[in-house]
């Protein structure tokens, strides 16, 4: 295939000269039309003057637009994204260079949506595999005008060949997933709804990341389907009741949860979804099931499945690159980009708040105050083990310890926090030990540091105090035990309005307060008691 390459550096060593001709350096004056396709492969030049460099990069965008207007719309036009191989941090105004690079890359993605002939190649996917010293070989750059190390040319050629063959492939439409040891760890039928590995510590954590990644894949337009040997009722119940489940019934467009062979199930679903078998990818941890589908349905792609849950995220990346990569964006994608941009604008708008409360209000915070139960108990114990900074007494408890205290009649709440920017999950807890029918003592109060700075601690404690009041408690005691790390909480109970009744030589402070009136809470939080 005859190819013409627009370039601003020496890249012949990378793209070769077999049927390939090159423009002059950053020269668009001559555009041949006797070729089969065009490639635009510019690199960010070396220029310590970042303002000048930014302007130069911006000019590439205009030149690319001019060239594209001039070539036949029927010929493929492949554009490499720009990567700054030699980012200098000199005066602080280098952001202009990064901005120009990002702007160029956004423009390329847009072009791929508006011009049917344009496909874009994410060059950073190649460069991100190497460190800065490997990417750039200054000796060869000075001799040849090629910033990209010529020693990487064999790697590059292998990568580029794969890109070209993948570009020719059609994007798959549907991912069919097994459940046990594929979407979560363990076997639902044996381990039960709360026994499967999902959420919490590893390995459950790995499956949470995996499910979140798959959710994003489905949002990008890939159809998710389930094919599992299980009791359907068990699975439906797990989807409904396991609080760590990210992917639930509504995320799957088709499902076959039964004891039939998977090949028949997958064919059935292809018919139901009205898609070809050749647009399906099937994932299963069981090699025997994979082999069966490979044998009976050779059109379906059946990649090997990772042995270890921690390999799921790199596996996800491979899946995307092999089967679900986008070289062209759709109008819908462009709309999304538009939404994303308006979000950035909105954020910029919000940085101008004068009043802190107004800012808090704009965050649209949701605070769920939840009594301890079997689902959140492991997380509660974990927080007592790990939280150091906002922790009034720093008492460490195991899961068994927490359960024991619940059995003894302690009142334990945790708090789940989310706002417009996302869900932070369960990030705080309070342990209350009843002293009498009317009096209660705060044994433990802690919040994860990632939610601090928004007054959440205040709202949480006051909500709990109001609940205690409704339950008939009238007196509260508490203590502060200083550690090397919890200095920021030394005055917390004072600010809450409690009276320090005693302080010993180690700095331990004892507090008391009547619970007489309802505590007022700022109205910038949406508080739910579950």
């Amino acid at each position, binding site marked *: 295939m005859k190819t013409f390459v627009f370039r601003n550096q*020496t890249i*012949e*060593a990378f793209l070769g000269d077999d049927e390939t001709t090159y423009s002059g350096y950053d020269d668009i004056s001559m555009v041949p039309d006797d070729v089969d396709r065009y490639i635009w492969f510019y690199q960010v030049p070396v220029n310590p003057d970042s303002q000048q460099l930014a302007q130069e990069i911006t000019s590439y965008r205009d030149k690319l637009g001019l060239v594209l207007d001039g070539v036949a719309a029927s010929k493929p036009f492949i554009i490499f994204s720009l990567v700054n191989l030699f980012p200098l941090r000199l005066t602080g105004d280098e952001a202009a260079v990064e901005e120009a690079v990002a702007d160029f890359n956004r423009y390329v993605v847009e072009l791929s949506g508006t011009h049917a002939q344009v496909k874009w190649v994410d060059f950073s996917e190649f460069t991100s595999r190497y460190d800065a010293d490997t990417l750039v*070989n200054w*000796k*060869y750059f*000075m*001799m*040849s005008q090629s910033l990209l190390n*010529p*020693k990487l*040319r064999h790697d590059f050629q292998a990568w580029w060949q794969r890109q070209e063959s993948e570009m020719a492939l059609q994007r798959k439409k549907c991912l069919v997933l097994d459940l046990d040891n594929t979407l979560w760890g363990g076997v639902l039928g044996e381990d039960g709804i709360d026994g499967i590995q999902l959420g919490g510590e590893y390995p459950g954590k790995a499956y949470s990341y995996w499910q979140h990644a798959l959710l994003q894949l489905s949002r990008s337009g890939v159809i998710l389907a389930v094919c599992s040997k299980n009791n359907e009722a068990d699975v439906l119940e797990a989807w409904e009741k396991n609080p760590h489940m990210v992917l639930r019934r509504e995320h799957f467009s088709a499902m076959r949860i039964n004891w039939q062979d998977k090949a028949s199930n997958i064919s059935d679903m292809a018919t139901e979804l009205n898609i070809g078998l050749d647009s399906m990818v099937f994932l299963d941890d069981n090699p025997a099931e994979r082999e069966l589908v490979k044998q009976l349905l050779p059109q379906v792609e059946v990649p090997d499945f990772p042995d270890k849950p921690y390999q799921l995220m790199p596996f996800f990346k491979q899946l995307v690159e092999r089967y679900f990569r986008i070289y062209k964006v759709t109008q819908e994608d462009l709309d999304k980009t538009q939404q994303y941009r308006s979000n950035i604008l909105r954020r910029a708008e919000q940085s101008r708040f004068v009043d802190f409360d107004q800012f808090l209000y704009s965050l649209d915070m949701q605070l769920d105050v939840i009594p301890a139960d079997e689902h959140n108990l492991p997380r509660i114990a974990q927080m007592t083990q790990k939280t150091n900074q906002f922790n009034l007494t720093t008492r460490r408890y195991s899961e068994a310890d927490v359960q024991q205290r619940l059995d003894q009649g302690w009142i334990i709440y945790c708090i789940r926090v989310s706002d417009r920017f996302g869900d932070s999950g369960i990030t705080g807890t309070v342990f209350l030990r009843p002293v009498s029918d009317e009096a209660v003592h705060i044994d433990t109060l802690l919040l994860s540091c990632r939610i601090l700075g928004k007054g959440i601690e205040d709202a949480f404690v006051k909500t709990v105090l109001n609940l205690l009041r409704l339950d008939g408690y009238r007196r509260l005691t508490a203590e502060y035990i200083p550690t090397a790390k919890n200095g920021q909480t030394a005055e917390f109970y004072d600010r809450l309005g409690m009276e320090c009744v005693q302080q010993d030589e180690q700095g331990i402070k004892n507090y008391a307060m009547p619970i007489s009136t309802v505590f007022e809470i700022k109205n910038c939080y949406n508080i739910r008691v579950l």
Partner: protein
Amino acid sequence: MTIQENVLNIMRETFELNEVSTDLSQKNCEAWDSLHHLMLASELEDAFDIELEPEEIAEMTDFSRVIAMLESKM
């Protein structure tokens, strides 16, 4: 494999030639242009695990000078 054989193989692959001989030079080989000269240098650096300075690379204009340079490095 001797150094000579090794270098000839590298030259054949880098310059994409069917036949190579020990009298190969920049003058009598069209494919041995400035770009391929650098590709040759980078291949030699990797194959013999050496570093060549730009001045040294510039001197390696034919097969025998390449061999002389490599021998001086090892």
